């Protein structure tokens, strides 16, 4: 049973980057952004194509970050400048990205088994591959977590947070909230794309369908994390998301170990999120009933 730990840790950390991005949109900006199901494979596609064409894996990953940033900005642009409903803006972007990702890759799947990736030096080490790879993801996640924590406490970072908290108030204090939303979504999807780029290299291929259901998995991670660590501050929120992502992968690995088919994972995750979201509503409904009865 213990051997599910390394793989869960690796995946949990790798997907934590995406979960941080999703939390930035959903929790900080209060923007339910569905772009991520498209920007995650976009990151994978850009990195894989560039690496396949012989580019440096680090530069290819940076290019993926830029691509994700632009995709997020575009979603924000649709929502703020064209006043398209935020959910629909994300869905539109996600759908368009499907075609774009196929264009970028030139086909549905690029294998990266034979080409050197960011992980190749770690695979050539004398020790088990798990240790350096987990250490690498830990370092990247730590840097991203601290980076976003710091940013959200800068003067502009405060404005981005206020945009999600009380838009009218921060507008009256002189902040262009459209720009803050666009930038915030760009940042969010940059994290998601980086996650996609690294995961494609880690698993040895990029696939156009690798983002399906990512948003739900990300939300599950956030909800689990928030249940474990009360997100009273930005620092705690990002910590909760990382911890939640690891715990989520542990649960999934455990589920598969006791016989859950990989094809049922999305159903299981969806049910998990629905239950988590239903509990507060059901609880308050019960309280209301009790109140009516005078309890």
């Amino acid at each position, binding site marked *: 049973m213990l051997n599910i730990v390394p793989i869960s840790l690796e995946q949990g950390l790798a997907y934590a980057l995406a979960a941080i991005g999703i939390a930035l949109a959903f929790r900080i900006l209060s923007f339910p952004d569905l772009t991520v199901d498209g920007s995650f494979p976009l990151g994978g596609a850009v990195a894989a194509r560039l690496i396949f064409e012989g580019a440096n894996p680090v530069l290819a990953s940076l290019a993926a970050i830029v691509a994700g940033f632009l995709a997020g900005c575009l979603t924000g642009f649709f929502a703020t400048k064209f006043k398209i409903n935020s959910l629909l803006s994300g869905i539109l972007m996600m759908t368009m990205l499907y075609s774009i990702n196929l264009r970028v890759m030139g086909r549905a799947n690029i294998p990266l088994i034979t080409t050197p990736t960011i992980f190749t030096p770690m695979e050539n080490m004398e020790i088990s591959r798990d240790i350096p790879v987990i250490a690498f993801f830990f370092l990247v996640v730590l840097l991203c977590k601290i980076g976003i924590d710091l940013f959200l406490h800068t*003067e502009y970072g*405060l404005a981005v947070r206020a945009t999600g908290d009380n838009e009218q108030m921060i507008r009256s*204090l002189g902040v262009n909230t459209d720009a803050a939303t666009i930038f915030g979504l760009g940042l969010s999807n940059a994290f998601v794309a980086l996650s996609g780029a690294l995961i494609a290299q880690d698993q040895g291929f990029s696939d156009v369908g690798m983002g399906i259901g990512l948003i739900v998995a990300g939300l599950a991670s956030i909800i689990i994390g928030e249940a474990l660590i009360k997100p009273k501050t930005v620092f705690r929120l990002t910590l909760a998301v990382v911890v939640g992502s690891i715990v989520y992968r542990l649960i999934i690995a455990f589920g598969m170990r006791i016989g859950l088919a990989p094809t049922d994972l999305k159903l299981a995750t969806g049910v998990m999120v629905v239950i988590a979201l239903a509990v507060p509503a059901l609880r308050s409904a019960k309280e209301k009933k009790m109140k009516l009865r005078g309890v």
Partner: protein
Amino acid sequence: MASPMLELKNIVKVFNADTEDEKRAMDSINLTIEKGEFVTVIGSNGAGKSTLLNIIAGTLQPDEGSVTINNKDVTRIPDYKRASLLARVFQNTTMGTAGEMSIEENLCMAELRGKKRGLKWGVTKNRRSRYREILKTLELGLEDRLTQSVGLLSGGQRQSLTLLMATLIMPEMLLLDEHTAALDPKTAAKVIELTNTVVQENQLTTLMITHNMQQAIHYGNRMIMLHQGKIQLDIKGEEKAKLTVNDVVAKFSHTLKDEALLSN
């Protein structure tokens, strides 16, 4: 005489134009407010009070006419670009602050009103100790709760904080939109006194909408009454100082059907 702080020229605002519900919320309003004037605005529901404030703040754009603040034509300038000129306190106590953010973070955002916001650290040590000193003046104990989120405060505390935020960096003009209406009478009295002190001490040009006739008469040095999108009454100076509720009621009982205006 120095140039006026605010000039509204021939402001027209029509809602639901060309439908059965068409409403002329602003019907050719002309209003000039001098520097240092404290103007109270009364009028029944739907008289156009909030529309007036929204047009000055830029949340709404007039259909016709021009808005000039301190010699600057701002008619077509969006609300967030007017922030360096105006500060606003709303009726809803949750509207003036970011509830999930801390007291010190809210103050920091207010300190940067209308300024460029970069990647410099927000709540610096310097700022924190200054906020602590300023919060002491409220005598609400908030100076010991700097890092707590504003959502934990009571309505009166939030409104006092909003007022402090509005005047942390002095605006050219202060807009108050029935900012005590949602508070219990005791807290409302405290907040209005605080308002008066801040306005007097800083000779702040102020426009205060109120539902409370007593407030409108007691505070400020000029009072205007709106009715159906027009300014029906404009009293200043000596005349304003001598004004009583009965005078206004006697003169305008026919337009003051709104009971809320006469209560208190």
